[in-house]
């Protein structure tokens, strides 16, 4: 978990309206929206698409109640551009979509990365490619979240496994976006988005809040360099209307923000965009371990599939298979250090990677080990059952 201050962003009546403290029986999509509201979401722009629509609808109701802004845009190209625009004007902003819209948003994910405009993109994954199975589960946008826009840049992507985690990770994602000034993803899947479960919303004062860094010098002195990073590689951010007269561009730029079209300037900028996530990966990475201590068979999974995987591990143990689960909470950064440490014990004999795609996380695991990495896949449309996972373990 990243270090957090407990200071809430909003106060008084607004805060009470934002944070619906209590125990709820709540849809995953709604829980995601409520988490974002609790974390101080100011601005939502989006375009309806199954299975993410309930996030959009919920925020259409709830944002106006707390003084936030909701805009339904003409498409996802516009939605993505609008949340970046709102971000540079000081908003905590978010959009929500599914595969077809996620592809359109990729254009300006790169702009958010190079402008260092914090924002959150929720992708509730359905079976793809193209229109695929609009109402059925998929998990095949994992690599797209990491590599979907052209070029090299750093992002963080979370994968909730329950409605409760949709709530918690929405808060985490808005904080991470602001802390590192990056586009941040919440990679839900149709089953998690459409699952209704117990969600506990804590008191407002327990909602972690990590603010965006702001310039230390006042405006008007002409000394502030909008893209000069601090030691953590993240520059403080000046917003439109504050008087700093900033220039932001999608072109390669210098610390002033002015275009600097040279290989040297490009190297400096792009390396920093990647490094601010890469060098902080250990702080950002989140995962959950289940029976890993003596495990010889390591199951790696995420999202709805991790729920099957957990049950499969429990059943496998009853059959005497020394199985354990590493559940990814961040898909990106990938928990390489943890996996390497497991390998270093010499105990691990194999990996099993169940996922509702044809091997996207498996590819990451294979990159780290020569051991067998067994696949349990389908390309979308149905949950992977625990039986299937055990069957593969036993092979």
């Amino acid at each position, binding site marked *: 978990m990243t270090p957090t201050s407990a200071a809430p962003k909003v106060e008084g009546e607004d805060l009470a309206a934002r944070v619906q403290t209590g125990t709820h029986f709540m849809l995953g999509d709604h829980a995601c929206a409520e988490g974002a509201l609790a974390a101080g979401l100011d601005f939502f722009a989006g375009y309806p698409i199954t299975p993410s629509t309930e996030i959009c609808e919920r925020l*259409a*109701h709830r944002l106006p109640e*707390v003084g936030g802004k909701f805009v339904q845009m003409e*498409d996802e190209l*516009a939605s993505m551009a609008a949340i970046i625009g709102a971000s540079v004007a000081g908003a905590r902003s978010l959009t929500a979509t599914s595969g077809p819209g996620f592809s359109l948003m990729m254009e300006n994910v790169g702009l958010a990365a190079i402008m260092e405009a914090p924002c959150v993109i929720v992708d509730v994954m359905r079976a793809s490619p193209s229109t695929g199975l609009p109402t059925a589960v998929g998990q095949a946008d994992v690599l797209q979240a990491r590599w979907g826009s052209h070029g090299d840049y750093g992002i963080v992507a979370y994968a909730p496994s329950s409605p409760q985690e949709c709530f918690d990770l929405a808060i985490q994602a808005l904080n991470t976006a602001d802390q590192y000034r990056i586009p941040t993803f919440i990679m839900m899947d149709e089953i998690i988005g459409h699952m209704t479960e117990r969600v506990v919303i804590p008191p407002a004062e327990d909602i972690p809040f990590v603010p965006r860094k702001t310039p230390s010098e006042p405006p008007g002195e002409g000394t502030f360099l909008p893209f000069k990073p601090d030691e953590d590689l993240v520059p403080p951010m000046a917003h439109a*209307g504050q008087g700093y007269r*900033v220039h932001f561009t999608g072109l390669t730029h210098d610390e002033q923000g002015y275009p600097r079209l040279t290989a040297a300037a490009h190297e400096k900028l792009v390396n920093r965009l990647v490094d601010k996530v890469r060098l902080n990966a250990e702080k950002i990475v989140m995962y959950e371990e289940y029976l890993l201590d003596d495990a010889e068979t390591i199951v790696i999974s995420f999202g709805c599939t991790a729920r099957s995987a957990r049950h499969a591990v429990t059943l496998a143990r009853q059959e005497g298979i020394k199985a354990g689960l590493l559940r990814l909470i961040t898909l990106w950064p990938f928990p390489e250090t943890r996996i390497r440490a497991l390998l270093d014990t010499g105990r691990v004999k194999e990996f099993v990677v169940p996922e509702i795609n044809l091997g996207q996380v498996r590819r990451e695991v294979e990159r780290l080990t020569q051991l067998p990495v067994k696949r349990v896949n389908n390309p979308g449309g149905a949950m992977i059952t625990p039986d299937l996972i055990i069957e593969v373990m036993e092979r």
Partner: protein
Amino acid sequence: MTQTVLTGEKKTDTHPVDALLRADRLPHILCPGCGIGTAMHCIVHAMAESGIDRDKHVCVSGIGCSGRVAGYIDVDSYHTTHGRAIPFAVGIAVQNPELAVTVVSGDGDLTAIGGNHLIHAARRNIDLNVICINNFNYGMTGGQAGPTTPLNAQSSTTPYGCWDRPFNLPHLAHAVGAPFVARWTVLHVRQLKDAILRAMQKPGFCFIEVISPCPTNYGKFNNIGSGLEEMESYRRRCVVDHDANLADIEIDLGQEDSPIVVGNFIDVDREPFRPILAGPVREEKPHAAWAGLRKTQFVEDKNGPE
């Protein structure tokens, strides 16, 4: 601005709009005879005269030669992606309604790749000033045809002459609901500046088409000649008609004897977009049919939070 002339002698004369420009970014990239600099001049003058605090002005551009304008004006400025200047600006304008947001971009940027955003922002009447610099081609990428390239015109992608019908931009903007619509050329510096000023002071979506020479990539291939010669043809051909029937003001650039109609065509009152603000102290209430979207079922908490 400090200029070094060929003799090496230093001149320290300042220009009246220096203070409004990012002098440290000059000289600009625009070609000799290009009209974009003149349009930019009108924009900064309008900003200065607007009575709006300079720190509340924001300039947003897309990609293209015209899209470079945001980079030269000394206000908070955003040079975005090709076609997305308007939705980016929508995010700024909706988030902070105190800001006067001016979008400056090219005909290709705003009406081809960004055409969908143009019509929807106008339909919603978002509080934006949109200045579309129409040079009848994609200047930045070397003179390809676009949605404003006249019939039969030459361009690198219409070597047999352009056979698509071009947009009539004021007619389009009016049809999709813009409450202020004007067209001027860069020859009409005063009228253009005044139109921009009006747009800055008027709430809602204001659209101004600025006809501008691109001698490098359009004029040269279409018997127009230099930037100066193109300006000369504007002088000969332009007819000011604020009451023109917008359906009739298509530009037939290749026909020397056809007029170019300019003017402030539309200026009507229309309620601008504002985001709904509901809640305890506000007026709007959602329809009861949607109550389920807001309320969640509270469950009895037997075990306490875990």
